[in-house]
């Protein structure tokens, strides 16, 4: 076999091996994402109170409080009700979301001061949530199908074994080009996520801390997001949390906004 032929053969073999490896890592990434999603599902419903601290580049702090309840719905996306508790000028404002698989979520906003229920479009997912470094899409349903997945390898983060995954949002409306996720092998929850903006620049890093077991599910106590471009920081802390809460679907009807 002549040298050019050997080189051609070797190149083809390398390309094919790379393609196979890429397909393998995509399949493995998707399998891990599905496994983690299954492990985190089945809690039925959840009720929680949260505090969010917003810290600007100078270190000034602003506090927000909210109550959240959610319920899993079979064959559909989860439903959630968010009630703003602080600051007091927006106390009583509520956001109701009916998640849908493969479609935009249904959303209603309840403006407490006007006693008005308003239908809103859920298309703007990249906007800031309550002026924080969290975007609406960071806090919404994290269905596996919202991303394409790839397993990049395994790493140890802060002493914990984790899968390193790259996920790319399938929605054109996402504010991110990709996210690098360190998924804890035991908790089956992200320990850290690096978010890259549409220009492929590192935008922010989310770190989950204080994992605790609620029944058979692991959940973090705090989520901290640092924006590398603005140097602002937001910390979301669960002050109360109950999984398998005593909630039923009626509490997530549009009518329930006025209760």
């Amino acid at each position: 076999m002549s040298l050019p032929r050997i080189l051609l053969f070797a190149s083809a073999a390398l390309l094919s091996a790379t393609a196979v490896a890429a397909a393998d890592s995509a399949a493995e990434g998707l399998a891990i994402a599905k496994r983690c999603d299954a492990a985190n599902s089945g809690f039925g419903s959840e009720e929680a109170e949260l505090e969010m601290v917003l810290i600007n580049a100078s270190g000034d702090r602003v506090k927000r409080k909210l109550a959240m309840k959610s319920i899993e719905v079979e064959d559909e996306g989860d439903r959630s009700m968010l009630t703003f508790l602080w600051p007091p000028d927006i106390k009583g404002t509520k956001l109701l979301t009916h998640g849908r698989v493969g479609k935009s979520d249904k959303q209603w906003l309840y403006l407490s001061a006007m006693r008005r229920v308003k239908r809103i479009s859920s298309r703007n997912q990249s906007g800031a949530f309550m002026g924080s470094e969290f975007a609406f899409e960071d806090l919404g349903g994290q269905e596996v199908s919202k991303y394409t997945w790839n397993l990049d390898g395994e790493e140890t983060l802060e002493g914990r074994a984790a899968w390193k995954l790259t996920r790319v949002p399938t929605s054109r409306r996402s504010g991110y080009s990709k996210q690098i996720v360190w998924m804890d092998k035991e908790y089956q929850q992200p320990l850290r996520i690096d978010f890259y903006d549409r220009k492929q620049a590192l935008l922010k890093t989310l770190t989950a801390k204080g994992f605790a077991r609620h029944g058979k599910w692991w959940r973090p106590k705090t989520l901290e997001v640092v924006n590398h471009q603005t140097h602002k920081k937001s910390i979301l802390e669960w002050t109360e949390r109950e999984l398998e809460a005593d909630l039923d679907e009626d509490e997530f009807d549009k009518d329930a906004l006025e209760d």
Partner: protein
Amino acid sequence: MSGRWLGWRSALAAAAGLCLLAVPAEGKKLKVKSQGQLSIEGRVFQPDDIDRTQDTGLGLAGRLEANARYKPFDGQLRLFSRVDALDDTRNLVAIEELYLGFKMKPVRVRVGYQLLNWSATEAFHPADMLNARNYDSRLENPDKLGEPMVEVQVRFWEGNVSAYYMPVRRAPILPRAASRLSPFPKRLDVPLGDPLFSGRDRQIGDDWLEHQWALRIEQTLGDADLSLHVFQHVDRSQPTQVVDLFTGDIRPLFHFVTQVGGTWQQVFGPVVGKLEVGHREFGYPDPSPRYRLTHREMLDHTQIAAGLEFGWGIGQGEGTLILEGQAMITYDEPKLATPDLGPYQRDALLGYRHAFNDTSSTRLQAGVIVDLEDPSEWMIAARFERRLGDVWSLEANLRAIMAEPDDAGAGPELGELIAVGLERWNNANELNLTLSRFF
């Protein structure tokens, strides 16, 4: 004025009711919440040349809200009061909500004063007619007053059906002659008397009892929210005027009306489409020996408003473009000629709202409303809101109106008499600032 202070006595009764609810019972969980705000309100109008009108206002306003839940019961109280140092005709104590409720799936019952909001559109509200309003507040969307009622709501399918019985005719708060927001002629020294009502029996009087009812069905069908309503009540937004032959006063007369209508809201990707309709048939009063009816009559009409909202992300904020239009369709006359309290007849709104989504929840909203029958008549309104720290907030509103009545050179007095729609507020240009402390 008596209606305003009737509210105060009822508020005390409500507070007593809430206290009773607050008595803890063994094995049950009582939840009591309260909140409120104190505001300094200032408003300045572009000066006119009429001595009796008041161009400035400086008031201290407060809103108190309390809610008690003791399943399956609940109670709600919401009061608003204002004292104005420069314009005492704006002083008031108003009940916005004061009810006791009972809820056991799928039924909800509420008895007392309620604020209902049946609106789908932003600027025009043909379906949202049940509450009386304070017409000496915001011209664009006057504040509502609580309406005494019994409500029974039953949830079914993807929504509910609600029935309302409203035995009391609650008068709206009308701007006094000194107010720049008065829809009545300001240059003519004609005393404006207390409101009169024409009831189901077509008799004119000021009795406060009347059988009024409403029925409303709401359903969510996929991406659409639909509602249909029918009600019979004494309208509080479109008075005609009568001369009281005993006193010589001009008195606003509110008419009994049957309304059918509905709303529709649907999401199409980033766009929300809206439609709001109300068809009204009035019961015109029988002749009265005491009250002489003016030449203007209420005409049965259909009011239709439609709109689109288009939202998109801008950085961390959100912009929303609002386009709305409204038409009044009459059947007996070519043009509606009622001296209603609202500024809109056949108009279009082009507006923009920007939510900065920052830590101060800064919002900016601006829009122009143009009279489609006479594009030289328009109103521009802008609003700026920003939180200052955690518990303070600042709101600024600016409004300019250009709607010259066609007085054919006969003078402004005649102009005021023949003014219709937005013309009655021509040059009522206003800047108001509100600084609020929430607690």
